[in-house]
């Protein structure tokens, strides 16, 4: 078992015995990843934070039945993705605006050295974020888990309940669509 998963297992066990502090530690450990997923799936803003919190609350309520058949993080991702899907189904797509919503979330600064490269990096990051938001839902969730969260296809299959070959196809299509949407940057003089 990976060290992080082993630590999670100990915290899960303590949380299952009613130790709220242990559950708080689990939330603290995974908040960044879950918030990243909900933000990218829904678009940045207060709703993404709310859905991330809801996912943790759902995990807390279901925790007594968690038997460790999968990694805690995998189980948590699964709950978060389901919450995002529910939210998106309840609210029709197409109403998201990255500009309007960007005020609601703070972002870590990019690690860069010069103002010029910082500007280029910021422009590219913005374009990629916008491209991700434009992806069809199923491709977006696959791309986010694969290339932003850095998960393997096996774990993605466990989270999404979809065969890995299907996920590979979705990631491939997401990459293709994103490359198309970024093509104008390649053509422009840099």
């Amino acid at each position: 078992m990976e060290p992080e998963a082993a630590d999670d297992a100990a915290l899960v066990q303590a949380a299952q015995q009613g130790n709220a502090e242990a559950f708080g530690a689990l939330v603290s450990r995974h908040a960044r990843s879950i918030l990243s997923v909900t933000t990218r799936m829904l678009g940045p803003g207060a709703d993404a934070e709310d859905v991330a919190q809801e996912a943790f609350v759902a995990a807390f309520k279901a925790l007594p039945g968690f038997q460790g058949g999968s990694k805690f993080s995998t189980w948590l991702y699964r709950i978060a993705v389901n919450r995002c899907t529910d939210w998106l189904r309840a609210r029709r797509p197409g109403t998201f605006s990255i500009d309007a919503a960007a005020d609601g979330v703070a972002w870590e600064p990019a690690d860069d050295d010069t103002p010029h490269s910082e500007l280029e990096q910021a422009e590219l990051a913005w374009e990629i974020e916008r491209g991700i938001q434009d992806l069809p839902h199923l491709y977006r969730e696959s791309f986010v888990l694969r290339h932003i969260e850095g998960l393997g296809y096996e774990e993605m299959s466990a989270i999404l309940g979809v065969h890995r070959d299907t996920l590979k196809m979705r990631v491939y299509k997401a990459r293709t669509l994103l490359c198309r949407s970024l093509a104008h940057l390649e053509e422009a003089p840099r």
Partner: protein
Amino acid sequence: MRGETPMADAERLVQRFLDRELSAEECMDFVVRLGRDEALRARVIAVERLVLEASRLPRPVVPDDFVSGVLSRAARPEPAWRRLLAVLRAPRTLQWNLAGAAAAVALVVLVVGGGLAGLRTGRPAPEAARAVADGGSGATPVLVRLVVVQPGAMTVAAAGDFNGWDPGQTPLEPVSNGAWTVTVPLEPGRYEYMFVVDGEEWIVDPFAVEQSDDGFGSRNAVLEVRPPAETSL
């Protein structure tokens, strides 16, 4: 018209390269090919750059009160109406999905039951089902009955994520009054699908609860199959 068009060989090679799935020998052949093929090289560079930049995208900062907010919400008692709703929703899932226009009406029925395990496909149960089972719900096989009314059709088949988009694997049987049906055992998950009439006409379900634009000019119906207890998560 098809939702998940198969990759061309060259494209499949590129994707396997990007996913680091090529053997050492295949990788060497691929690199040699890259040296010769400028277009392929440009394609690989563009996708590699995208993947690199995506992995570098900034992460949202977790607000200081995030953890305390979760703990506070978790400590809140569940409202009575939600407890009642959970009880009503937990035992079974039943979804109806009308498909097609006047000449093409499709119906999707989900039936949930542990006794249906013998009808499952050969595909191993996804980890997700076990993950949900970990939540105390218990993974349950789900039978999905697809019904489409296509008077005059010689053959009707279903193609989707559940069968690798191969209509040959899921033919529908004619029943009566132009209706065709098939029952498909599905693992919990989200599936896109279409119907294929007479082996060539791909029809999408205009009345599907959810449709997905595949980004390539087609739309697919989306079917979500959930284990019953997952509704409480």
